[in-house]
């Protein structure tokens, strides 16, 4: 097969000493940038872009892609060990990674994250290699109505889960949607919900600001409140034997989440409107929905760590696809990569695969190598990350606080966001006291700003006729499935009520 020989050439190219060195350095740097709260692949790639002028373009993009990859692995580290999302793509990893760590199973969570990332990355690479042109046309067939239908499905997975308190879940989603609507309206260009006329609200509420506030600061307050300061530090041990048994357990309990994350993440990743963050959140929702033990989610489910981690790696490969085949960035990070390519004299777009074969296949080959390198380097560092957890909470808590502040500031370099973040932390703490689930709000603030403009664009297309979501061949089935999922719990509840009213009679 021609593709395989091209891929083989690409791999050989990426194993050349210079390129291999770029991969190893890039993955390691990415791992640590990803692990730093607030700094994600976007910052890493942006900061290191200038460095790449020292090497040829092929090696430069390999370096940047390796950072991207490493950061996806690294994001899980602080999500699990500190409970602060290391990057927006790793927010969903805190949902179950942090509870696992609190139970003293941090090593299991970290091993699961590493393995899921590896599998997700590998599946995505294979899909990319074999079906790139086909998948590009799939991405193009997703217009506004299709993207909106997909967002509806994502919300449905969070509402239709059952088990949770549905009115509170809906409230949480609405809260997230309102916060997501702050700033400028894309359709009319007018500012809205600029609370108290603070200019800081004009740029909208940064997703990371909310996530770090809720999970970093809110979680810390919660821990202090729950334990009244008497925190018994878990002393996780780390041995080779322990890691081997963790690997087995991760494979056994997390394979389902990994598979869901790998495929769903990749698919969401190739849509330019979406990207890795929605991909990982959606995968978490779907993994919970199809799980036989949905009650475990949020309390330390292995699947709950595996799904978002597989998804964010898979999506990061996926978002390279529209960049390379269409010249359109699938994520903020690929937007910067794209900028790099223009500077190196490459024209991204449909001609790239034909005109720059060596460059494209060298890059794809490097994905495979980077993935293996990232897995090994990550596993090697796990004992170091675990060691951090052995610090007493009295030392860890101020550290989390400082890292949260730094992380909140890093994204926009605006003091306003820090106050906002502290506010979100307090708000989250009280909501949690009243048993409101917070994950749906986080999901809504990510998906709302994608769903709203696509909804309005669709209705403009159809002159206000909502049937556009049902009559289009791709949007139709997705919308119907989403609606069934949304109303499933309501139907179940009605049935239960009817049964109850029958019994006493």
């Amino acid at each position, binding site marked *: 097969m021609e593709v395989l020989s091209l891929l083989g050439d690409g791999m050989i190219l990426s194993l050349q000493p210079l390129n291999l060195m770029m991969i190893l350095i890039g993955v390691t740097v990415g791992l640590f940038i990803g692990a730093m709260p607030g700094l994600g692949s976007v910052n890493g790639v*942006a900061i290191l*872009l*200038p460095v790449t*002028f020292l090497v040829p373009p092929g090696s430069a993009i390999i370096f940047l892609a390796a950072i991207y990859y490493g950061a996806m692995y690294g994001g899980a580290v602080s999500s699990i060990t500190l409970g602060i999302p290391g990057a927006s793509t790793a927010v969903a990893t805190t949902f179950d990674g942090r509870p696992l760590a609190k139970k003293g199973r941090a090593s299991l969570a970290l091993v699961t994250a590493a393995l899921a990332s590896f599998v997700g990355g590998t599946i995505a690479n294979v899909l990319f290699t074999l079906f790139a042109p086909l998948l590009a046309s799939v*991405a*193009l*067939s*997703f*217009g*506004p109505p299709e993207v909106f239908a997909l967002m509806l499905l994502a919300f449905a997975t969070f509402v239709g889960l059952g088990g949770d308190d549905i009115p509170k879940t809906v409230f949480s989603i609405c809260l997230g949607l309102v916060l997501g609507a702050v*700033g*400028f*309206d*894309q*359709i*009319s*260009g*007018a*500012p809205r919900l600029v609370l108290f006329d603070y*200019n800081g609200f*004009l*740029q*909208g509420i940064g997703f990371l600001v909310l996530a770090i506030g809720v999970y970093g600061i809110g979680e810390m307050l919660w821990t202090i409140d729950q334990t009244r300061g008497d925190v018994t530090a878990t002393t996780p041990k780390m041995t080779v034997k322990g890691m081997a048994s963790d690997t087995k357990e991760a494979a056994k309990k997390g394979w389902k989440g990994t598979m869901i994350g790998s495929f769903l993440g990749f698919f969401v990743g190739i849509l*330019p*409107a979406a990207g890795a963050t929605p991909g990982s959140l959606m995968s978490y929702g779907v993994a919970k929905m199809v799980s036989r033990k949905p009650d475990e989610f949020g309390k330390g489910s292995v699947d709950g760590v595996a799904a978002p981690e597989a998804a964010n790696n898979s999506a990061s490969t996926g978002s390279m696809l*529209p960049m390379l085949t*269409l*010249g*359109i*960035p699938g994520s*903020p990070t690929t*937007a*910067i990569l*794209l*900028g*790099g390519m*223009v*500077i190196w004299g490459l*024209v*991204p*777009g*449909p*001609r*790239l695969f034909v005109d720059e074969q060596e460059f494209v296949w060298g890059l794809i080959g490097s994905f495979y190598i980077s993935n293996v390198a990232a897995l090994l380097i990550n596993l090697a560092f796990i004992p170091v990350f675990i060691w951090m957890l052995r610090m007493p909470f009295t030392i860890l808590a101020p550290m989390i606080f400082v890292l949260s502040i730094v992380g909140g500031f890093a994204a926009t*370099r605006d003091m306003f966001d820090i106050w906002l973040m502290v506010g979100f932390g307090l708000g989250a703490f009280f909501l949690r006291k009243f048993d409101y689930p917070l994950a749906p709000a986080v999901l809504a603030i990510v998906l709302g700003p994608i769903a709203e*403009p696509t909804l309005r*664009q669709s209705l*403009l*297309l159809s*002159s206000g006729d909502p049937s556009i979501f049902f009559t289009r061949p791709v949007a139709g089935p997705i919308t119907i499935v989403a609606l069934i999922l949304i109303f499933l719990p309501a139907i179940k509840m009605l049935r239960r009520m009817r049964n109850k009213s029958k019994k006493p009679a």
Partner: protein
Amino acid sequence: MKLTKRSLLGLVGASFLATTPMQALAQDWQPTKPIDFVIMAGAGGGADQIARFIQAVAEQQDLTNRPLVPNNKGGGSGAEALIHVSTASDPDHTILVTLNSFFTTPLRQENLGIDIQTFTPVAMMGVDPFVLWVHKDSGITTFEEYISKVQEMDGEYVMGGTGAGQEDSIVIAYLSGAYDLDIKYIPYDGGGAVAKDLAGQQIMATVNNPAEAKGFYEAGDFVPLLAFSDERMPAYPDVPTLKEKGHDFSYYNQRAVVGAPGMSDEAAAYYQDLFTTIYESEEWQGYLTSESLSPLWMNADEQRDYWALQVENHMELLAALGE
């Protein structure tokens, strides 16, 4: 010579001095921290591409002692960026990459309280013409066919763009007025997203800068029908202009860099020198050619006059739009 640690340090120092551009030595003012390089558009569009290209040239040739840090603030047709820059706490380290929303957004949203004449002129890097594109599968190959198709569809012809009052919508509005067209206009958050949805035929036509459509044009997916430039464009010699069709209308997007209001004269001089160097670089001149931009170099005073003229022009255009 015996190599000691001290003499090695001296050597390193000397070679460092030797490679520092002479121009930098001659100057009084130098940035003391990273420069906030604000872009009044989202990632991936024309303005963003240009900003990142400029940043790269500056890095590659080591033109600044502190880095230019790109900062996308595209919200509200650039209103977010205008507010951010006009309220910048450190105007000497805040510069803005502009497009025509620099003129239109303050006109359309007077409540923002932005007076663009308070901004500091830095450099006019070029002007970007607009072209009307359709997908090759539409079968339309000439502007006349396009006009009759739009008229035939009677209000159902869908075009995408970057939003009401944005550059492309002004062009589309002029076209609609001149040929009595009824077009359904869908706003997107950037030129990149618009190009993608034309490639996927979610929309039927766009008015885009050549840079945003070039990849698809070269692959044969997009067909250019009409240029809104004064003369035919060298890269598209077969594409007629609207002027040839008998309408005295041309429209360009400015690709200019401006400084924050209240920037010191020394800092302004520094940035003007910096961007002159970038403008004259082989890389930028190559970019102008490959992306079909037209040069329109002017000094600081000429830029201010140009702003005043553009504000006047856009006031008329927007009034004609009913904005």
